[in-house]
C-alpha cells in the first residue's frame, strides 16, 4: 500500500470520528472512564502491594539451635538456610545480642534490675537466625525444611501474620483482575458499537468503494484507525488526569495527615506511571484495535 493511500485512510479515520462526533465522544468518554478506573485501581493495588511487601519484610522465622552446638555447625545451618530460593536474607543473633534486645525491650529505664543478672546471661541458649523471606506464602514449607536440619532445636514462626498477608495479597490480585476484565469488556463493547454505527452511516460509501474496486484493507483501514484513535485518546486523557490526581493526593496526605504518612509510604508517582503509562496505552490502543477488527469482521463483508 502506498504511503499516500495509508495517510489518506488515516485522515478518513479521523474524519469518521468527526462525522460520528456524538458516538465517538461517548466512546472516548467511556474509554477515559475505564482507563481512569483502571489507573485508580492500579495505583491502589501498587500502594497496597507496597504496604504488604514492607509488612512481609518484617515477618521473620526464628531458628534456635541445639545446646552446645559448635560455631561451625551454626554457620553450616546458616548457609543451608540462605541457599534456599524463598529466603531473602538471614540475620545471626548471638546470645549476647538476644540479651541486649531483652534489656532494651523489657528493662528499658530499669537498668539496675537488668544488672542484677550480672554475668549470667539468661538468654545463653537463645542464639538464633532470623530468616526473612522473599514471599511469606512459602513460609510453611521453609519451616518444615528447617525443622529437618540437624542441630536445629526449635523454629518460631508467625503463621497467622503470614497467612493474613498471603490472603490479603491474593484478594487484591483477584479484585484487581476482576475489575480490569469488566472494564476492558465494557470499553471493547462501546468501541464496537461506535464502529458499528460508523459502518451503518457509511454503508453507501462502502458499497461504492467495493463497486469501484477497493481492496478489503482499503475499506477496513479507516475503521481500524478510528478504533485505535478512540483508544489512544481515551487512554491519554485519563493518564493525564491520574497524574495530576495521584500527585495531588500524595502531596495533600503528606502535608495534612502526618499520622497516615508516617504509617505508610506512597509509591512515588513516577514509579507508578512507569508501568501505568505503557500498560494503559497498550490497553487503550489494543481495545480500540481488537474492538474495531472484531466488529468489521462481523458487520463488514467486503
Amino acid at each position, binding site marked *: 500500500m502506498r504511503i499516500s493511500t495509508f495517510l489518506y485512510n488515516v485522515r478518513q479515520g479521523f474524519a469518521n470520528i468527526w462525522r460520528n462526533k456524538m458516538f465517538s465522544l461517548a466512546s472516548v468518554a467511556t474509554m477515559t472512564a475505564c482507563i481512569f478506573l483502571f489507573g485508580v485501581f492500579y495505583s491502589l493495588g501498587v500502594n497496597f502491594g507496597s504496604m504488604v511487601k514492607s509488612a512481609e519484610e518484617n515477618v521473620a522465622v526464628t531458628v534456635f539451635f541445639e545446646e552446645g552446638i559448635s560455631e561451625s555447625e551454626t554457620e553450616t545451618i546458616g548457609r543451608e538456610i540462605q541457599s534456599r530460593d524463598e529466603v531473602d536474607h538471614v540475620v545471626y543473633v548471638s546470645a549476647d545480642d538476644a540479651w541486649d534486645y531483652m534489656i532494651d525491650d523489657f528493662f528499658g529505664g530499669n537498668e539496675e534490675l537488668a544488672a542484677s543478672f550480672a554475668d549470667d546471661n539468661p538468654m545463653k541458649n537463645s542464639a538464633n537466625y532470623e530468616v526473612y523471606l522473599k514471599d511469606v506464602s512459602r513460609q510453611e514449607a521453609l519451616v518444615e525444611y528447617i525443622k529437618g536440619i540437624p542441630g536445629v532445636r526449635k523454629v518460631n514462626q508467625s503463621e497467622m501474620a503470614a497467612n493474613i498477608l498471603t490472603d490479603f495479597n491474593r484478594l487484591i490480585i483477584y479484585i484487581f483482575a476482576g475489575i480490569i476484565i469488566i472494564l476492558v469488556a465494557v470499553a471493547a463493547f462501546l468501541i464496537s458499537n461506535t464502529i458499528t454505527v460508523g459502518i451503518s452511516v457509511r454503508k453507501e460509501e462502502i458499497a461504492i468503494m*467495493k463497486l469501484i474496486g477497493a481492496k478489503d484493507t482499503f475499506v477496513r483501514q479507516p475503521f481500524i484507525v478510528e478504533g485505535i484513535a478512540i483508544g489512544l485518546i481515551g487512554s491519554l486523557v485519563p493518564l493525564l488526569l491520574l497524574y495530576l490526581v495521584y500527585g495531588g493526593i500524595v502531596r495533600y496526605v503528606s502535608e495534612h495527615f502526618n499520622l497516615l504518612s508516617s504509617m505508610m509510604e506512597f509509591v512515588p508517582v513516577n514509579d507508578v506511571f512507569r508501568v501505568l503509562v505503557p500498560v494503559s496505552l497498550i490497553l487503550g490502543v489494543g481495545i480500540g484495535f481488537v474492538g474495531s477488527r472484531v466488529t468489521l469482521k462481523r458487520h463488514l463483508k467486503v
Partner: protein
Amino acid sequence: MIKLEHVSKTYEAGVQAITDVNLHIRPGEFVFIIGATGSGKSTIIKLLQKELTPTHGKIIVNGRDIAKITRKQIPKFRRNIGVVFQNFRLLPDRNVYENVAFAMRVVEAPKREIKKKVPQMLSLVGLAHKYRSLPKQLSGGEQQRVAIARALVNEPKILLADEPTGNLDNQHAWEIMRLLEEINERGTTVVVVTHNMDFVRQMNKRVITIKKGVVVSDEQVEEASDAD
C-alpha cells in the same frame, strides 16, 4: 469483451431473474438493454460486476471467466468496469473533485496522477468549473455527469450504466446520452440499461430486449418496439 453463455440466475427466495441468456458484446460497442421493471436487466449488470453469481452458465468479461475470479481478485477485476447508477450514488459530504478523486484513491493511484487526471475528467464531462461544489448544489444532470467522470477516471474498458437517465428531465437525459455516446466513440464499451424508448429509437444502436428474464430480441434498430 462480454459473453454470457446459457446464463440463468435464481435468487434464494426462488425467484427466477434471468433464464438461459446468451449475449456477446464486442469491444467498443454501444448496447442498450431494455425491458420492463423486474425483467432482469439489473441482474445482468450485477452479474457482470460479480456482485451476483449465476446459478447456471458461463460469463466472460474482458477475457476472464468470472466464475474463476477469487474473492481476493474481485477488486482488480472491477477496476476495469465503470458503473453509473440511476440515483448517481455520489458521496454527499464531498465536493465534485473529491467524488471523482475518490475512485482513484480507492485503487491506490499516486497523488500526482490524481491531480492530473481528475481535472481532465471533469473537463470531459463539462464540470471543471464546478469542482468545488457539493452534490446537493448541482442539478440531477450535473450529478450524473460527476458520476460518469468517477466511473471513467480509472479508464475502464467497459462502462455499465444502470438507468442513468431515470431521475433526469428530458433535456438533462439527452445530455447524458450524448456524453455516453462520446465516451463510446473514444473506445469504451458502453452498456446502458434503460426503459426510455426515446433514446433507443433515436440513437440507432444495438438493442437487446429482455422480457421476464429471457432475451426476446437482439438487433441493430432504427426503431425498437417496447418490450412490454
